[in-house]
């Protein structure tokens, strides 16, 4: 509900990660913060999904089999997408971080991360949009 007491649609968060267990855990965490959540096991699955244009925020794993998270974001940006992105990664290095920054990441989280860190990053991303 918004300040006017209207039932508002909760923001839609799309999560892309090839680890199904992590996908499920993040879905639960975001749901507990009252976000609408859609999960995708690969970048390709997200690209063809109907949720792509309506997502309010993307949580992307950097290292994905096939198209990586950063490449996905580059494609989205190239096709005019403005959806803010939070990158998560289990493999942290300077090069990846730099690339993430360049493609306009709101936040870059190193796995494992606290719920506060993720939820904070997501709300900052939503605020930007």
């Amino acid at each position: 509900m918004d300040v006017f007491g209207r039932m508002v649609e909760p923001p839609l968060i799309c999560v892309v990660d090839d680890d199904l267990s992590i996908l499920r855990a993040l879905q639960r965490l975001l749901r507990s913060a009252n976000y609408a959540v859609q999960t995708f096991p690969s970048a390709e699955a997200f690209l063809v999904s109907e949720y792509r244009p309506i997502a309010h925020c993307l949580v992307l794993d950097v290292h994905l089999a096939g198209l990586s998270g950063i490449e996905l974001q580059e494609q989205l940006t190239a096709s005019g997408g403005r959806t803010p992105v939070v990158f998560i990664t289990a493999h942290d290095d300077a090069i990846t971080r730099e690339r993430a920054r360049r493609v306009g990441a709101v936040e870059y989280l190193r796995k494992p991360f606290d719920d506060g860190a993720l939820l904070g990053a997501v709300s900052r991303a939503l605020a930007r949009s």
Partner: protein
Amino acid sequence: MAPALRLLARMLLVALGYYVGASIGFALKFPHVTPSVMWPPNAVLTTTLLLTRPRRWWIYILAVLPAHLAVELPVLSPASLALGLFATNCSEAMLAAGLLHWLSDQPSRFDTLRRMAFFVGAAAVVAPLVSTFPDAALVSALRGERYWSVWLTRFPSNVLSELTITPTLVMLITARYARLRTVPLRRFVEGAALVFALLAVAVVGFGGPPGGGMGWLWSVQTPFVLLLPCLLWSAVRFGPRGLSVCLLVTVLLAIRAGMLEVGVFTMPHREDGVLALQLFLTIVSVPLLCMASVMEERRRTSEALAERLAFEEMLSRLSNAFVHLPSSETDRALETWLERVAEHLKLDCLVLLEFSGTGDAFVARSWKAARPGPGLLMFASDDFPWAVAQLRREQTLNFTDPEELPMVAVGERAILRRHGVRSGTVLPLEAGGRVLGGLAVIGFAEAPAGQEQIESRLGLVGEVFASALARRETEDALRASEGMKSAILASLGSSVAVLDRKGTIIAVNDSWVKRTDEAAPTAASQTGVGDNYLAAWRQVGARVPHAREAVAGIEAVLERRRESFALAYPSSSSPKSRWFQLSAVPLESSEGGAVISQTDITDWKHAELEAQRSREELAHFTRVSAMGALAASLAHELNQPLTGILSNAQAARRFLQAKSPDLDEIRAILADIVADDKRAGEVIERLRELLRKGGSQPERLDLNGLVRDVVKLLGSDALIRNVQIHVVFTAEAPVVAGDRIQLQQVVLNLLVNAMDAMAECPRDERVVTMETTTIEPDGLASVSVRDAGIGFDPSKHDEIFEPFYTTKAQGMGMGLSISRSIVEAHEGRIWATKNAGPGATFRFTLPLAAPRAL
């Protein structure tokens, strides 16, 4: 003298003899009697023909023709009679000599009864008998005399001439006057006494008044009785030669008496006297000649026998001398016996040649009689190339004049002539089918008679010398081989003992004797020659765990059930840990037995353990380094489940803050947390296994599973590096026996290398294909890792497996080297091939494990 000149001289001599003989024949006539008492020319001619080969008779017959004519033509008429008588004289001589040449083995010798009998029969009976018929016919025809009276006067005269003159002439011509030097003085004295006695007796016997008289003294028997002792004396003491000379003297004296018209043979009727004298002399001569030849034959036989016995005795002493002679004394004995043999055989010079080795060089030992002649001969090996070659071919050399040697032997001829060598015989000395040397007899004078006999005796002596040389050679070789064997045995560091068939020690080397109790802390420490080695092992059997195995192994070798046996064992009693190797091999002898050697292999064993330890440490180190490279991948691998756990747990906490928490949701969360936790545990377990130090036992491994584990371990790494790993597994599980961790490391190294090789490639090309296959016919399993990276230079194929070869900035260059040593330790092979496209394929094979027994 040239042969032609010599022949001419002989012809002249014969002609002269004939002429003198005929002259004497004409002179030897009783007064008032026409025919001669004896007719010597026939005997001269017979003698000549006996000493000449029949092919050359015509020369001498032609030679005497002028002499015959010169004597007879002046006194005989008509001239045809002289020619006819020449023909009959010649026929008598030719018949006599021809028959003797045909019948007798030695027509010019009268030293056996057989030869003498042939002579008497042929020359003194048949030839005169036959030739007198034409002789008498000729005389009676041309001179008109009565045939039978001519025959009767000429026949006895011819018989007597042949009987007394021919043997005397032959034997005087063939006599060896050189031997007179060695005849003792008393023989000369005896001979002189005989001549004196004969002359005295003959003077008395044939003397006296004509026709005999003075009562008993001069009867017809008187000469016979008086002469017989002297003639017997000559026959017994001086042989046929002495007798024939005496007979001739007697005949001449008797005829001389008749010519002087004294003695019993001067009969009223002169022809009767002549006939009586001829008969008397013939009758006396024949048996005496036969007896003399028998005496001579017996004397020669006994001499030969004695000589032979002496030789046999010497030969047997010679053989005995060498039978038990140590080889070191052979040289001196050879020299001693060379002298004895040469002296016994009365040789001028005897040389023993001994070949050294297989070449033509020889060592010569010579002995020379202390007679006048050249000094000691010095021979050099290369002076006699031709003779040595003949000897090597087992040819006997024989020459009575160096000029007889063939033209190729020009060197030999020159050197022999220079040394004044006249004759020589060289026999090869052979033993066991090999020519060891030669035995040479060298003569400085004309070759003596009996050459064949000396040669055969030298052959016997040569056999003894040859066997002595052969024996020395064998003994020397044996000693050298014994010396070498014992030197080898002594030089061995191992303790060596020789066992007989029952296991008793019959010989040991120095090391065995010197070993201390500490160095050989087992059965060997108490054993020596004469002890039973097996028994010693059985004795310690209770205390030593490997004793039973040692006894069984040695017994198997002793019984020829095993070709060899070896056992490595730790010492049981020494304070320090020591290792020994016991080995047994059969003894190659008809008696059976075995050779035992005990070697201290402690150092070797330590080195082996040390090497194994360093290998494991290095492997561990390279694994740890590989882990360093994988750190990022591992962090990712662990962070994934940790992220899942953390997020799930925090989600659950948030759910639980709600008024009515959804318990199903909480349960699902907990299940996910459990699963993630296990996942993290597995990662850690894989990591720990990889980092564990080696030393595990070989086990049966499924290569497919092994490759799968490694791929899983490196999966995150591959993800990070954007490398796709394709795995193609063979359908049937390839089972090999080996060390899991080590083989995992090989696969890991190959996979990491493959990914490293593609670091610079475009992303879509970063593909590694891993494949397992089984090659059933060869019993092999193989794993290949194919990348599309930078590849390698095929000319450096062998180098890339060497330690410290690397193309990476941070590489140590140990990965492939370690991989190769691991694969080879598993009896496998590892190699690399360049792909047709980009990149390389590394492959290793391992033998498939035998199927597990059901």
